């Protein structure tokens, strides 16, 4: 299948490793990935900050750039959720990665191997907006030698919330501290999620605490095969 990749602004500039992993996984499964190079940002930050006209313009821009693409995938459930809310016609065309793999392509075993204890953080967008359901967990369970552990208070927000992390930094931090405590309590060496934004928050706090737990996006884990 020919899949157009929407990498997102954060995915392009901050967490490029997630995009590379996404391409690796899709190509390993035999699909052709294309990258419409005019893409930039979905407008979520502007929506969330109250700058509607700018957000609408970015949404329109996305629609124009991806006009000719039947199937679009993105490793960010929050961007996918935002775009589908602004443009409901994207349902059935725009997918978050785990939605595409499990729901659209019918695949749970992507040939990955990752012999580590991994905790899964269910991001708020993926739970309540994009509604990815069990897809990420099904994919993780099919990864060879991966030990999946459950977090206490799994549905609780990590505290990122976009500009909330800056405007209400203390409350955001208090939430991050609790999320990190739950992660550390599992003994996991890796925490994963389907949103890089949340992983920036969680990873940032884990790093500050010297907790010895690293963050990896779901795509990065799925890209691991144990082969060099």
């Amino acid at each position, binding site marked *: 299948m020919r899949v157009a990749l929407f*990498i997102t*602004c954060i*995915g*392009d*500039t*901050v*967490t*490029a*490793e997630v*995009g*590379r992993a996404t*391409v690796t996984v899709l190509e390993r499964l035999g699909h052709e990935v294309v*990258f419409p*190079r005019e*893409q*930039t*940002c979905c*407008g979520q*930050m*502007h*929506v*969330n*900050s*109250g*700058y*509607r006209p*700018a957000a609408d*313009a*970015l949404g329109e*821009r996305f629609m124009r750039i991806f006009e000719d693409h039947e199937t679009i995938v993105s490793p960010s459930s929050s961007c996918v959720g935002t775009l589908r809310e602004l443009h409901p016609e994207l349902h059935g065309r725009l997918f978050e990665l785990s939605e595409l793999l499990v729901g659209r392509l019918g695949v749970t075993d992507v040939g990955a191997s990752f012999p580590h204890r991994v905790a899964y953080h269910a991001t*708020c967008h993926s*739970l*309540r*907006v994009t509604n990815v359901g069990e897809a990420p967990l099904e994919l993780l369970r099919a990864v060879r030698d991966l030990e999946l552990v459950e977090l206490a208070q799994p*549905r*609780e*927000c990590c*505290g990122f*919330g*976009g*500009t*909330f*992390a*800056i*405007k*209400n*930094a*203390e*409350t*955001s931090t*208090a*939430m*991050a501290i609790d999320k990190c405590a739950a992660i550390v309590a599992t003994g996991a060496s890796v925490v994963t999620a389907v949103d890089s934004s949340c992983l*920036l*928050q969680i*990873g*940032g*706090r884990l*790093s*500050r605490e010297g907790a010895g737990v690293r963050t990896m996006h779901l795509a990065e884990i799925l890209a691991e095969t144990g082969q060099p």
Partner: protein
Amino acid sequence: MRPFPAAAREALGDAQLRANLGNATQTIREKRNRVVAELADWGALREAGAAIKADVLANLDRYLEQFEQAVTDAGGHVHWAADADEANSQVLAIARSHNVTEVVKVKSLTTDEIGLNDALEAGGVHAVETDLAELILQLDGDWSSHILVPAIHLNRTEIRDLFRATIAEQSLGDDPRELAEAARRYLRERFLTARMAVSGANFAVADSGAVCVVESEGNGRMCTTLPPVLVTVVGIEKLVPTFTDLEVFLQLLPRSATGERMNPYTSLWTGVTPGDGPQEFHVILLDAGRTRVLADEVGRQALRCIRCSACLNVCPVYSRTGGHAYGSIYPGPIGAILTPQLYGIERAPTLPFASSLCGACYEVCPVAIDIPSVLLHLRAKTVAAGLAKPSERLAMEGAGWLFGGRRRFALASRLGRLAQRPFVRAGRIVRLPPPLSAWTRTRDLHPLSGESFRDWWEHRR
């Protein structure tokens, strides 16, 4: 109103408050989840509740007039209060007409909202709170931090000390039964001697004129049956069309609020009944900003609220900061959308931002108020009203422009990679200048990638 970030910062430093709140919200949350899970048709009930309220809001003028007629026909008096001052004056006038100097009160957020107790006090009438938590707050000179459990920020030892200083002996212990008994003795005297009571209402039935109070302790029952004069202050949004509609809300409310299948006391009364209960009954219909909320197509769903507080208990922000940080009688998620609309966005511009938009509130709301959507709507209103900081406006407009074209975006990305170099240590950024210092004060930051994704993509071809 104090900006939320500053108020929250202070509240977060209070370890006792956080411990109390954390325990209490978790307990109520678990109870709520258990009893909601028992109902196979919870989703349908919720939709029904939302639909009934939407119908009421869409036809409020008709239902209000119907209610007025029904109450009057049943021997009650209806007053219309445009704002808090009018409502307070009306209550005071009724008290004065009976030479009443002390009234007993059923817990009513609406009367707290309008500052009734202070207005009565200024008019020489003392209002005695009879709900245990409200009594505690009144004795303590404090104000509510939670819609349902207003004294949630206090623990039993603090309450014991308060009672010892006001209504009980020095020998009082902190056992909950002892504390309740002390309150009961004090209140029984008040109930038996009161000549006027003031209540709010959870629901007001348009077709029959019936008024409904849902409570746990029985003080509402005492107040609405013993004194000869009863005044009920009710927000105009509290109407339901028919008596049958109560069936939906009386299932939604107790389960969402206290996590019970049914609350201990539900009182319903209509007008007056000669020889039984109050012989004079007044209803004060309160606007105080509600019609302003009604005028907003997106924001009006906030008026569906049945004051269950399920959203407070599930909110990761509220459960850490508590209610006082919101600076309003309505805190938490519902407060963040109701307060700015009732009082005007310029009075509470930081409240719509007091949220990470996690959506847990929407999930539990028994009348399906889409709180995250209203928050976003109000955020847009603050910006449109010119209330955003100029530096923020500039930054957002700049970002919007950068995102508007591939080349400028790629250039910004490249410049960012250069600019960050002095700040990157061992693959992490640990310190940045303001405003990003708010992040790096407590968290490290993943640096911009050495090579952007699009550059990697170009190079691999």
